[in-house]
């Protein structure tokens, strides 16, 4: 369904554009139809950038994204626009994703008005149907986003996204601004909708427990690179990369296993995780590690494996 080939995105900054931040640094992966891939990592590791690149909301520095056999980079603007209904994005903050001056009904009807030629009554019917699908009542139709809670607004966002029957959804931390009891409601709803519509989902999150619940496969990111990837139970149960293990460790971690420092920039050579790695050897700072397949479908970026 989705094929990503050596994708890179470097942001340059400074007056002379001398500083370059490698937000996404040579990433490749495949996604099957109907699968949920969890993308985890700390803030600033490039998760969101990948999500945006996949939908071509950002232009990559190099590399390719192939969506259902179509190379997104080759498309002209109009062609890309025609493809948009099939790929959608859900953002972190539901309150900021909805137009505060539009009623819930208008918000959900907007994509339908743009893409589907529908009569008034048909439109109304479809909006009600979508609303019911995400567990809201008809009484919510004429309300405004500020009159709903964060969880309810996120449901409205889901209704909007599902309106055009998409194939692929990028969900960027859809529950991180919600309370746990509401988060559970939204995640369960998402699971059901995913099954019902056979959606392919890239689920971006920093919460491993959430990702464990919702994903078929997991990719762990650190400083623009995927450091480990595989089936959920392999990665979280039998993680090989030291960074994955630091994330997975239960609450009471041994002092040595507790990561020191934060994601500071590193020298241009060597492993990205080297400065914080408890198992780092001299050689790690000199040679860039390569992805190794340790078991079928389980890849790790570490020289020590």
């Amino acid at each position, binding site marked *: 369904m989705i094929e990503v080939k050596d994708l890179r995105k470097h942001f340059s900054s400074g007056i002379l554009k001398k500083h370059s931040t490698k937000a996404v640094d040579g990433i490749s992966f495949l996604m099957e139809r109907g699968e949920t891939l969890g993308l985890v990592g*700390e*803030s600033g590791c490039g998760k969101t950038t990948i999500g945006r690149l996949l939908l071509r909301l950002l232009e990559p520095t190099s590399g390719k994204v192939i969506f259902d056999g179509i190379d997104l980079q080759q498309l002209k603007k109009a062609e890309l626009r025609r493809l948009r209904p099939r790929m959608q994005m859900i953002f972190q903050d539901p309150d900021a994703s909805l137009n505060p001056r539009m009623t819930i009904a208008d918000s959900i009807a907007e994509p339908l008005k743009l893409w589907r030629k529908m009569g008034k009554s048909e439109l109304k019917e479809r909006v009600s149907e979508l609303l019911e699908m995400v567990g809201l009542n008809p009484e919510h139709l004429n309300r405004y986003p500020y009159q709903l*809670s*964060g*969880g*309810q607004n996120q449901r409205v966002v889901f209704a909007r996204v599902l309106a055009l029957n998409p194939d692929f959804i990028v969900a960027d931390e859809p529950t991180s601004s919600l*309370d*746990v*009891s*509401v*988060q*559970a*409601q939204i*995640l*369960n709803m998402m699971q059901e909708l995913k099954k019902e519509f056979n959606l392919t989902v890239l689920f971006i999150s*920093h*919460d*491993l*427990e*959430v990702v*464990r*619940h919702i994903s078929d496969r997991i990719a762990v990111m650190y400083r623009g690179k995927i450091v480990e990837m595989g089936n959920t139970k392999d990665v979280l149960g039998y993680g090989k990369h030291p960074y994955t293990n*630091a*994330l997975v460790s239960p*609450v*009471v*971690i041994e002092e040595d296993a*507790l*990561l*020191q420092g*934060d994601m500071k920039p590193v020298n241009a050579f060597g492993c990205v995780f080297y400065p914080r790695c408890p198992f780092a050897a001299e050689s790690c700072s000199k040679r860039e590690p390569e992805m190794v397949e340790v078991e079928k479908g389980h890849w790790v970026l570490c020289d020590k494996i």
Partner: protein
Amino acid sequence: MSLLKLTHLKVHFPTQDGIVKAVNTIDLDIEENGKVGLIGETGCGKTVLGLSIMRLLQPDTRIKGENVYKGRDLLKLSEEEMRKIRGKEIAMILQNPTTSLNPVLKVGDQIAEAIRLHQGLDKRAAKEKVVEMLAAVKIPSPEKRANEYPHEFSGGMRERVMIAMALACNPTLIIADEPTTGLDITIKMQIVRLMKEVTKQRSMLFITHDLDAAAEICDNIAVMYAGELVEYAKTEAIFKNPRHPYTQGFLNSLPNRGLKPIRGMSPSLIGIPNGCRFYPRCDHAEAACKIQHPEMVELGNGHFVRCLQYDRS
């Protein structure tokens, strides 16, 4: 011995839409050297409770009840007397260090402010103390970092600055309002460790919705729902044997405990109905729950719960 004792504390805000009953009849004891975790979801009144202890709410807020710290009712003190306690005796770590730090002042000067006010140190002595505090919260090269601005610090480092600021005058009680929210997991664990270390000889009210962090730090946990406490017990008891349906639901909705949601939503704090506040969302609700408001009852061993199931009076 009890260090801070809240008795029937009520905090109400008059608003255009009616009175918001943010905190309703809360009784809570913080022992000397005790760490109490205050847990609840957005809008349940946790932060307001913390701010009311510090008397940092707007003047038109209606606060009733008693708030006795070391034998003195803080609610009866004059503003001047209260100022001597704030920061010196009781310090608060505010939510969200990004907005709580002044962006145009050097970090060192912000920490020095409280030190100079409360301890009467001169500029140079205060500066030394600042460096000492930054080192205590494990910020590398503290002399250099003291002269930097908040934007030069990462989220975790800013949180450390907030902690240093709270510790600066060696307070007896710390009120920490969601110090780990918004931090990445590896950084969060570092902060939790640090909080644990620096509060060894102090008391703390740890306000959070992060159960893992609370479990790591606190001896007792108070669970708050819609402005009142619904359960209070030793940390272990809350996790192993939660008795209130809300506490049970809250724990079960965590991703690592099955992700089973509580149906419905938290009620608005305006015009709260008479009966049990959790009644509309509760799976064990009976007819009586709608009418009768349950009282806190002790089940033994310091385990209190507010639910008619256990209230046999």
